[in-house]
């Protein structure tokens, strides 16, 4: 995942337990480090700085074993991470499963930071809703541009919140990654992505008080508006800046959700 990329944090595929040999767990310096172990009763004794040379053969074998195990674990781990971040290649095609088992769930990573190309489009997520007002009538709201609200919150902000910078942006990436061209969810993640995005837009509509006092959101419709970033002034490139829309179907909002959630 990276600052720009959306969905990479979503672990893909069912997870099978990794087969990482446990690193020998490091002992805690309960008492102060190096020279003394337990200040209470430790007599003066040679410390590790005397090195393995101060040990008898039995312990030297133990130390050598530790060096070997740690060296192998570190190198195998780095090899696995390398193959995980490398482009698809002969080795990853043959041993993809073993690599995934090692990496997921805790060592997943993606460092394609603005690469191979930075995103060159502004994708705005917009929403409208059918609301039942306090007097019992139903009306459809106009489009709320939630991404523009995020953008406004980020403007002039030295410390943008993840709720403004990542939440909606990555939820949209998650949704597009788990839906087909007909906007149908694919698998469990597709359903999760839909519920997630619905909860976000309902939350935001609540903050914008879209239903008015005493009203309730009954269903919502989401669309995206994608606009190319106009090429720089000094460039002679021609790029269309006409926005493109992707319209999702209406989603009903469960009654408990329309009222609840984080405010």
């Amino acid at each position, binding site marked *: 995942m990276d600052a720009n990329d959306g969905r990479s944090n979503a672990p893909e595929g069912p*997870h099978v337990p990794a087969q990482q040999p446990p690193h020998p767990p490091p002992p805690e310096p309960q008492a102060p480090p190096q020279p003394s172990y337990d200040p209470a009763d*430790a007599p003066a004794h040679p410390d590790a700085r005397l*090195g393995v040379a101060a040990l008898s053969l039995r312990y030297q074998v133990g130390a050598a074993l530790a060096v070997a195990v740690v060296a192998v674990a570190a190198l195998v781990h*780095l090899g696995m991470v390398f193959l995980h971040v490398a482009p698809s290649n002969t080795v990853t095609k043959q041993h993809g499963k073993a690599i995934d088992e090692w990496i997921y769930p*805790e060592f997943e990573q993606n*460092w394609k930071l603005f690469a191979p190309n930075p995103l060159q489009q502004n994708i705005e997520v917009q929403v409208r809703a059918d609301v039942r007002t306090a007097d019992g009538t139903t009306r459809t709201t106009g489009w709320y541009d939630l991404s523009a609200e995020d*953008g406004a919150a980020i403007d002039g902000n030295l410390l943008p919140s993840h709720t403004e*910078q*990542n939440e909606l942006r990555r939820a949209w990436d998650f949704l597009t990654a788990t839906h087909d061209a007909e906007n149908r969810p694919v698998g469990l993640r597709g359903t999760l992505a839909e519920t997630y995005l619905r909860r976000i837009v309902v939350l935001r509509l609540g903050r914008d008080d879209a239903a008015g006092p005493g009203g309730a959101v009954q269903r919502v419709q989401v669309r995206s508006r994608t606009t190319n*970033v106009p090429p720089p002034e000094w460039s002679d490139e021609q790029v269309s800046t006409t926005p493109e829309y992707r319209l999702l179907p209406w989603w009903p909002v469960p009654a408990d959700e329309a009222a609840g959630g984080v405010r």
Partner: protein
Amino acid sequence: MNGFALSVSRGIARVTESALGPYQSAVIRIGFAGTWLLFLLRELPHRQELYGPDGPWSWDLARQLIADNGAFTALMWSDGQFWFETVYALAVLASVLLLLGWRTRTMSVLFMVGVLSLQNRSVFMGDGGDNVLHLMSLYLVFTRCGRVWSLDARRAARTREARARGERIPDRVGPVLWVVLGAVLVAVTAAGRFDSDWFVPALLWGVWLAQALWWVIGRYAKSYEPRVLLDVVANVIHNGALFVIASEACLIYATAGWYKIQGSRWQDGTAVYYPLHLDYFSPWPALADLLAGNGTMVMLVTYGTVIVQVAFPFTLFNRRVKNVLLAAMMTEHAVIAVLLGLPFFSLAMIATDSVFLPTSFLRRLGGWVARACGRLFARGGRTVPEGDPGEPRAPENPEPSHVGFTA
């Protein structure tokens, strides 16, 4: 052949006799703990929306995803508000204590539990900065990162002084902490809540048992040998982890750089223009326009970024060039923090970079900080002991061929 055997044995002596890079491991400990602490404090008003049981990524959604991917998070142990607030508060506390280096090993484990619990609870809230912290919190557990610039180091120095006077300072807090955390481990395991992938639970149990072993051997072993062996093992693991951390940093830069080379925008020298014009990454549109207004400037920065990222791992073979590039990268990250509105990503990257800082610089930095604290508190910067508690290794690596963290 003889020369080869000699250098192998010298290498083994090096990685067994001490935990290398005490200042580097301390500065990344402070860097990562500080970054996560600032993030948690900044998001305090948004914590419910990000990780709370009723947030948009609700507890139930998280449960379904985690049942699928097996990630570790203590937040799945209960969907209650009280539990959520407790975990968030403990994550803050663990960051503070790890930053200060109090019971460093234990705190590094709790810090990791905090990071994983919150991040794995809501994976779609994170960005590259979270990813860095996630990995580094795991790696930090294996390091002896509290040897300098820590409360542990101060306590060690006091214990040493007391011993020299023939006094004994019994450690009561350590065993209490161990018993309490052990009770939690047993309770969680018995309740069957460790239903994630086996790795993190095994790590928690492993560290807890190793601490017991350490204590028992330190107290009851008849000969010095088991203690020295434990110390050697701890050093070897630390050195391995530090090597992994440094290599991970190289992998980050290599991946970021080599993939960019393949992109047409990085080739035609306009890439930097685009993020500056994305609504989500342009907190200062006027400033971005100013910087993006000059095509030659944009191209120089675009090419410079790729060159620095691709080159960095190779410059580790030359200390001077490495230090120049390090300064360039840290500066670039500081600029990114403001210009792209990515402060915590940048802080995490700067913390990662600092594993490559030269020891001489870090010691000078420590001196400045200690003096500044001294002036600030008048009573003396007590949490930043000056000098070098128990680690009088050569401050700079004399072998120019050596790669990595001590250089």
